[in-house]
């Protein structure tokens, strides 16, 4: 078929619940790109031109837009104004990929909150620049901090703007933010948050209220650096939730400690002209009715829900006339499955979710770095083969 829309127009149509020329597609490629390009983690994080070039060289794995998580790498670990990532991820940047090296893994899993009084009195700097983190980011000299704080962001986005010019694919993120309850688990440990929701729920809610606003305002600021208002897609905020959902927490905990603060974050951003890409890990099938209210009171096309294990057919049934949905080919299938299995899975997803628009085909979460490239390409091909409107 001949494609009649640009990548950005295609994705924009899906966000706005309209049919495009075909189903847009974007597997969540992150580390597989630098891995295939032969970059080390250090290269990937410290040299944005080489990372963007790797994405250009392997853009056959990218689909209609470079996934936000690949372009958010500037936020991870090496910037002084990074937040969630540098404390929630155990960074072991090395010169190799596994098995010789390591990839960064969540969770950091040390308590930096204590009785909550300190962060409520003195603010989040006590957490975000806590020496308990002890990673390399805190061993930088002043010149490095200044470089990463001011110059690096500009050079990073220059590199990704070049990617857009050379590939015709779109960016879909200017910044990222954390869901506060999920961040709290990172700062406090799952074990202690389990106690807190029962023994001191008001403290947890106060944290979520304060930190949710802090995160979303910081993200909007970062979007402006990325070119929001000038570069299409840079107005989008990637709002990530890892453990604030089933199977980790119950629907009751989600409804009380997660959703109200996510809704506040979304409202704040959208009411200021930004858009929010909600990446929710876990299985939220039982929470789809709650999530159907995420865009209440907001203009159409400003919120998108990106699911991992959630039942996409039910998501389409419940959210289809309100919010664009995105997902969810299993990561394990991309590593261990065949091209035929991937194609069959994608075809079913398209049949279940694509009618009327409002669906983007993607992976359930990260495309593992050791995925078979032909399987990733099969996801992209499936959108072209089975997803014509």
């Amino acid at each position, binding site marked *: 078929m001949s494609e009649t829309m640009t990548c950005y127009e295609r994705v924009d149509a899906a966000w706005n619940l309209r049919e495009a020329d075909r189903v847009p597609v974007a597997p969540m490629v992150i580390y597989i790109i630098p891995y295939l390009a032969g970059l080390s983690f250090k290269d990937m994080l410290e040299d944005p031109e080489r990372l963007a070039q790797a994405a250009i060289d392997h853009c056959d794995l990218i689909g209609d837009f470079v996934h936000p998580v690949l372009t958010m790498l500037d936020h991870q670990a090496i910037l002084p104004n990074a937040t969630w990532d540098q404390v929630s991820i*155990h960074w072991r940047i090395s010169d190799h990929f*596994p*098995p010789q090296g*390591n*990839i960064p*893994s*969540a*969770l950091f*899993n040390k308590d930096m909150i204590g009785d909550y009084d300190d962060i409520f009195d003195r603010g989040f700097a006590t957490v975000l620049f806590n020496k308990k983190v002890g990673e390399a980011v805190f061993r930088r000299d002043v010149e490095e901090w200044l470089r990463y704080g001011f110059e690096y962001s500009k050079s990073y986005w220059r590199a990704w703007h070049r990617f857009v010019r050379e590939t015709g694919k779109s960016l879909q993120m200017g910044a990222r933010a954390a869901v506060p309850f999920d961040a709290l688990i990172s700062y406090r440990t*799952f*074990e202690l*948050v*389990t*106690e807190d*929701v*029962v023994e001191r729920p008001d403290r947890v809610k106060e944290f979520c209220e304060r930190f949710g606003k802090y995160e979303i305002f910081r993200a909007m600021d970062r979007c402006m650096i990325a070119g929001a208002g000038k570069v299409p897609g840079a107005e989008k905020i990637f709002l990530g939730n890892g*453990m604030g959902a*089933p*199977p*980790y*927490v*119950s629907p009751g*905990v989600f409804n009380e400690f997660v959703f109200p603060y996510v809704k506040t974050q979304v409202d704040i951003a959208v009411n200021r002209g930004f858009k929010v890409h909600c990446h929710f890990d876990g299985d939220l099938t*039982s929470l789809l009715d709650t999530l159907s209210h995420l865009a209440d009171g907001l203009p159409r096309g400003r919120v998108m829900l990106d699911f991992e294990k959630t039942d996409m057919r039910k998501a389409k049934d419940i959210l289809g006339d309100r919010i664009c949905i995105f997902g969810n080919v*299993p*990561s*394990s299938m991309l*590593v*261990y499955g065949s091209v035929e299995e991937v194609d069959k899975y994608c075809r079913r997803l398209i049949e279940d979710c694509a009618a009327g628009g409002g669906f983007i085909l993607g992976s359930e979460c990260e495309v*593992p*770095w*050791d*995925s078979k490239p032909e399987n990733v390409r099969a996801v992209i091909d499936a959108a072209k083969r089975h997803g014509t409107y």
Partner: protein
Amino acid sequence: MGKLSDGIVALDKTRVLAAVQAGLDAGQDPLALVDEARDGLVVVGEKYDQGEFFLMELMRAAQIFQAAATLLTPVIREKYGEVSTKGKVLIGTVAGDIHDLGKNVVKMLLECQGVEVVDLGVDVPADVFVERMRETRPDVVGMSALLTASIPQMQATIEAIKAAGMGRSAKLIVGGGIAGEVALSEVGADHAATDAIEGIRVISDWIESSRKMGSGDE
């Protein structure tokens, strides 16, 4: 079910500790109180299976059980001396991966059942698994991981265990995130668990079978 097990199922720490104290004050056998609390944990596991409870509830139930055990252990020691454990499990997250939430839940719940757990932590190389197996002689070795890239590490660890001639000395189980989605033939373990409760049931059954065989019941 009694007040103690009811309290565990209700995830009500105050009620559980009050029931334990009341039982001790009334002269109840502390081991019977432990058993009753474990009955509560069984129901918690069933509720997890049915989708009524989630990982946070499992964690909370184990925390409450441990709080109860803190009250009961000195009384048990005074009355019976050291009580032998039901079995021994060696557990760790394989090399290259540091995810340990699922492993920690499994560890806590196994300990609640009276199983001794030797926790090797995270990012554990294959040779450390082998070395600690040799030292501790566990009934079961559990390997945890979240990442797809950890599957080859699980395979390598199992191969190292078998190469050291210990493949038959303990049952081998893998679990955590991706492990349950991969065919057993990929990893070479005796079982691949999709969640913590399934893993605990399989381990408990293995240990029970092993005890019966050891005591000549079978």
